[in-house]
């Protein structure tokens, strides 16, 4: 599903954020990218949906070399990739329903599809009763569920999660992880960057560990270490 070949990414003249990274993620896998702040986890995620382009190496997603594709094709790539962030990135002037609908609206999905898909995904994340709330009326965990609903409403092949539990208390974070696990069980590939040891140890999934931009460990059913 995702394959990186000798990828190096440098910001400015600094030392590389990612150096010579190579790995492959199979369809339906759940992978943790772990390591301290600045180790290059987020950069790796941003390389996977072409928010960043590497200096060297290739990034293959769903059978395509995404840095070789034309700019005009990038939006269609991204329709297959959902994104979740530590700070949720919800639109504050829109309700829960509108935030999720927005993701379908701006890729031109018709109204009747939106009316059908949005309640279904809100049901999946457990927010059916809060459709008309605004983000500031929700707890952090609920806001993150809205952002997961928005990322998943178009049924993407891949979900990229950048520190999704970073702003949440442990119990709420566990709830989010159970939700991501359920989404993973539907066949969606999940790549999650985190430095939350407890969660990694709890999940026992594949762990790719980074240190100053270099992959130092890649382990099936690993722990944070």
């Amino acid at each position, binding site marked *: 599903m995702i394959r990186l070949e000798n990828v190096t990414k440098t910001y400015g003249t600094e030392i590389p954020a990612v150096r010579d990274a190579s790995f492959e993620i199979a369809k339906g896998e759940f992978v943790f990218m772990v390591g301290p702040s600045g180790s290059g986890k987020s950069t790796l995620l941003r390389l996977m949906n072409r928010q960043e382009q590497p200096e060297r190496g290739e990034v293959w997603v769903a059978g395509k070399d995404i840095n070789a594709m034309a700019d005009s094709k990038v*939006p269609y790539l991204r329709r297959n990739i959902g994104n979740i962030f530590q700070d949720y*990135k919800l*639109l504050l002037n829109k309700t829960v329903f509108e935030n999720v609908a927005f993701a379908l609206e*701006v890729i*031109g999905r018709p109204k009747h599809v939106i009316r059908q898909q949005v309640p279904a995904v809100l049901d999946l994340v457990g927010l059916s009763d809060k459709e008309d709330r605004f983000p500031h009326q929700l707890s952090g965990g609920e806001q993150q569920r809205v952002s997961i609903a*928005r990322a998943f409403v178009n049924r993407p092949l891949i979900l990229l999660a950048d520190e999704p539990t970073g702003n949440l208390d442990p119990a709420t974070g566990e709830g989010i992880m159970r939700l991501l696990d359920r989404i993973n069980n539907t066949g969606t590939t999940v790549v999650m960057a985190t430095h939350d040891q407890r969660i990694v140890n709890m999940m026992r999934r594949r762990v790719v560990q980074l240190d100053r931009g270099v992959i130092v460990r890649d382990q099936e059913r690993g722990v944070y270490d």
Partner: protein
Amino acid sequence: MIARISYAFRETWASLKRNVTLTMAAVITSAVSLLLVGSTFLIQRAFDNLLTRWKGDVELIVYVRSDADPNQIQVIEDALKSQPSIIDVTKLRYLDQAESYAEAQKLFAGDPGTLRLLTPENIPSQFKVVPISQDSNLIRELGEQFRGLAGVREVAYAQDVFDVVARVSQFIRIATTAMSIVLLVVAVGLIWNTIRTAMFARRREIEVMKLVGATNWFIRIPFMLEGLLQGLIGGVLSCLGLWGLNSAWSGAVADFNDTELAALVVTDGYMRFVMIILLGIGAIAGAVGSGIAASRFLDV
């Protein structure tokens, strides 16, 4: 498709409301610059009217002293008629003092001081000469021969007026064109800035849109529509202004009918043509300015 269109219009309208002051500045600037563009067209056309009127018409006027006796007048007329290779004898016209006075009443309608000094007794009579030859030197040579003739007060050439009018109209054209170009650049700059502000206000939404895979065109179109609307509203305002100006001018000039000034009126048909051009320029400048701005701030 309908969903996309309604999305674009909803966003455009929301954004216009959000940036009222900046939008107003952009609209007013483009209106003023387009008004200048339109004025340039109209002034140009008016002067063209004036000049074409002279062209097919009288080129040379021989003014006869008010105290000239009929014999002297006859000599002048005979001398003119003896040059059928240069002047069109059939179109040679003599305006006696009463006729010249009547003409002066209109010519100097805007200048009562001069008019008070004129009486049917002291006004010169005049021969209006239409040449056959296109050679202005030849006409001038002929005219100079009359200067020395007894009873001749003055010889006037249309060419002299023509030159002045041509020079004035060229000056006005250059000045208004330069000003309207400068203002148009300012207007596009303001539209650009409005769009940048609008995009900054919506940067979160744009970020989300890009992440969920909205195409750049989808993101860009509401902003382009906004710029297009600003240019178009500016165009409509400039059309109203131009129409008002032209009406006021036509009304004022109507009092000077039958003089050269009357030629400076632009007819409705040409006015409509200019208005369409103004709306077109406004819409295109707005759409292009905002389109470039939107692309600049929309790097993938």
